[in-house]
């Protein structure tokens, strides 16, 4: 079999951090090749390099044995490489035919001619999509068909699918698999990123597993089992000091009162009948892969998102049923949600540290004086800035100028000054330097020791194992597994998180 794509020692670094490291990867003509790995393992980065979105930092990429480097996605397209996104690349207000021929409009266009051409094209592919239908009226599977039809029209022979089945219904999934088979039958090669192991094992010819940017295993699919894949995904050697002492040595804290309970909570397609409890005086770890809905579940509990009005389930806070419309109501009742994306909705970035922290207090409405000023803000936030060990070169520095770790500490301090009793940390150490990680972990431990109910959402298994007393695993909008820290292991958690 000819090797159509080859990566040799491929490395892609962002700001010095390698997202993909020395990867040797091959894609053969006419095969379906599945890429597996945790969040952040480098699957998306690798395929984006192939699709021309990023250049390689070092190493080589060969197409048909010739070294290439793409300057843009259009450039990759010319080599027959098409990345099929969920639905983002179609223009919803145009019809199917217009979308297929997008970018090659002539000066004058007759819609009818375009429709007929699209009809012929779709029929040849055996896709049952009406060319005159508006894209906004199509379901997820049909949109994928349009994307693929467009790619085929551009003479694509390498298709990259990133989590194609995540939003599909079981029936649509069957259609999708039939479609992949057909593409394969026509000699095209397919790269398929997924978390659904059963799907991967049934349709892939070969499987590659990535972990922390490195290629761990590549083999024929028939040589893999679920167990072997999970092992390859998580088998990390924990040598660094931060996660060195394994979680097993630690004694789990005993659960206190039940603080938060979600019963059959649903929100659209992201959260489907999730049930979970959070107890005072311990850390509850919440693990899940992309699309598992863990952030959404906690955002619902904190009033940031609203659950479905009908059949949305029940949420109780300290035994009392609640339905928050806005985060303010949750904040006033002692719930703090600390965001995973501090730039997006965590920081007031052109303000100072003290102002950021003090705004937390103002928002809670617990500020004792009505006339405030910078001096007052400094006095009242000093304690928390001290506790969090926020380091900056001066008191007037705007938080946008701080390091990632210090920014994260400011966001945490802004929430902790509100004296919450339920604290939800969403990816608390994302983009944070090692020293700050240790300090943030120490704060989380201290909060739990002091009797607060703490939830830590993390994609990084060692972090979950290191911090949690109790672990919940989310998959497809549900909590599928609950375990104590004594029962938990990386393999067990990952086994529950994939499906």
């Amino acid at each position, binding site marked *: 079999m000819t090797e159509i794509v080859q990566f040799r020692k491929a490395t892609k670094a962002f700001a010095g951090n390698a997202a993909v490291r020395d990867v040797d990867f091959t894609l053969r003509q006419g095969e379906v090749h599945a890429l597996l790995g945790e969040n952040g393992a480098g699957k998306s980065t690798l395929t984006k390099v192939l699709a021309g979105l990023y250049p390689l930092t070092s190493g080589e990429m060969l197409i048909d044995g010739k070294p290439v480097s793409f300057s843009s996605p259009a450039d990759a397209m010319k080599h027959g490489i098409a990345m099929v996104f969920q639905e983002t690349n179609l223009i919803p207000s145009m019809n199917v035919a217009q979308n297929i021929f997008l970018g090659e409009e002539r000066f004058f266009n007759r819609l009818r001619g375009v429709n007929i051409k699209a009809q012929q094209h779709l029929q040849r592919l055996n896709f049952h999509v009406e060319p005159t239908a508006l894209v906004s009226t199509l379901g997820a599977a049909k949109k994928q068909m349009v994307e693929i039809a467009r790619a085929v029209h551009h003479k694509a022979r390498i298709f990259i699918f990133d989590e194609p089945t995540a939003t599909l219904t079981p029936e649509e999934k069957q259609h999708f698999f039939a479609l992949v088979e057909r593409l394969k039958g026509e000699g095209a090669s397919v790269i398929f990123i997924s978390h659904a192991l059963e799907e991967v094992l049934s349709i892939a010819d070969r499987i590659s597993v990535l972990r922390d940017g490195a290629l761990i295993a590549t083999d024929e699919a028939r040589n893999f089992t679920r167990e072997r894949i999970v092992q390859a995904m998580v088998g990390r050697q924990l040598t660094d000091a931060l996660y060195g002492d394994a979680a097993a040595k630690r004694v789990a804290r005993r659960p206190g009162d039940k603080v938060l309970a979600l019963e059959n909570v649903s929100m659209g397609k992201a959260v489907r009948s999730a049930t979970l409890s959070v107890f005072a005086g311990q850390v509850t770890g919440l693990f899940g892969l992309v699309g598992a809905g863990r952030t959404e579940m906690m955002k619902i509990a904190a009033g940031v998102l609203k659950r479905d009005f009908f059949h949305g389930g029940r949420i109780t806070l300290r035994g009392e049923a609640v339905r928050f419309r*806005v985060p303010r109501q949750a*904040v006033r009742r002692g719930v703090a949600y600390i965001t995973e994306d501090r730039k997006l*909705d965590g920081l007031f*970035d052109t*303000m100072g540290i003290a102002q950021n922290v003090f*705004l937390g207090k103002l*928002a809670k409405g617990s500020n004792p004086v*009505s006339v*405030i000023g910078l001096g007052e803000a400094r006095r009242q936030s000093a304690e928390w800035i001290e506790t969090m060990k926020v380091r900056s070169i001066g008191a007037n520095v705007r938080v946008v100028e701080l390091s990632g770790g210090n920014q994260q500490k400011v966001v945490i301090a802004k929430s902790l000054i509100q004296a919450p009793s339920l604290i939800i940390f969403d990816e608390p150490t994302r983009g944070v330097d090692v020293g700050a990680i240790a300090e943030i972990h120490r704060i989380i431990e201290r909060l739990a020791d002091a009797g607060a109910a703490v939830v830590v959402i993390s994609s990084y298994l060692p972090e979950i194992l290191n911090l949690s007393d109790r672990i919940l695993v989310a998959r497809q909008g549900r909590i599928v597994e609950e375990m104590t820290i004594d029962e938990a292991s990386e393999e067990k958690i990952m086994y529950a998180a994939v499906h």
Partner: protein
Amino acid sequence: MSEAAAQGNQARLSSLLNSQEGIVLVLAVLAFVLFSLLLPSFFSPGNILALIRSVSILGILALGMALVVIARGIDVSMIATMVVSVSWAFVIARSGYSLEFALLVGALFAVSAGMLIGVLIAFGEVAPIFATLAAGSVIYGLGRTFFFTLEMQNVPPGAGWFSLIGQGRILGVPVTVVIFAMLCLALHLVLSRTWFGWQTYAMGNNPGAARITGISNRPMIVAQYAISALIAYGAGLVLASSASAINARLFNSTMIYDILLVVVLGGIGLNGGHGKVRNVILGTIFVGILLNGMTIMNIAYTIQNLVKGVVLLLAIVIDSLVNPRDEQTSQQGDL
């Protein structure tokens, strides 16, 4: 003075000169010196006083606009609110009610118009520019159809104290200027010393973070537009008092652009979250010098508008370069 303090002062000076504020300040001083040297009638106590007085109304309106702009909004309905509420108050007063009662009704109308706009923006999630643009037309249309028919509404007769607002003096300073100064002080205190002010900055800085932190953005937005409408009404009263009448045609004038010019030129970024009252004062003074100088030089009205338009355009372009709305959009360079 110690060396460190001197160094600190020097650093502050250089950072001032690099900021938009500093540039505008320098430009204002330059324009002032230039006009004083070139135009003999410019640098006289009478003209300076007239300059400040004429520009005070613009400054008052800009204070209201500034509050809304800091919170990441914009209010282009201010002039409509101003002319309709003041005109209606005068109509009521002339039809036999006391002036005080009529003025109260006008104030209530202005506040409710502002709140309605605020509700549209906060709860209807309409973009502020469109909401206020459309609401301005609706308010003006309502006023001309139901409340008054004449464009020109004179101040009702027998209102002795009312004419003092625009024409009186306190220790030689026009009352108009005193009102502007007091409103500046009031808004300054609100913005820098109250939770309302702080939360306004927070909303403008990052609405998403403000929401998660527990700030109730929506009631805040309603309050901000209500306050800006009330300030517009106040400006209208000052204007009517000094001219003894209010002209509804102002709605069709370039006044709203002059207000935006003051706000943007002064250094209150249209992307929200920063800017202080001193920026409004600075903008007001610069625009005042510009307008007054051009008027003395007898430059045609249309050319004055062209100059103002060009300056506004430049100010907005510089503002969007200096304060990009967010990192994502400012880094898009693949065209």
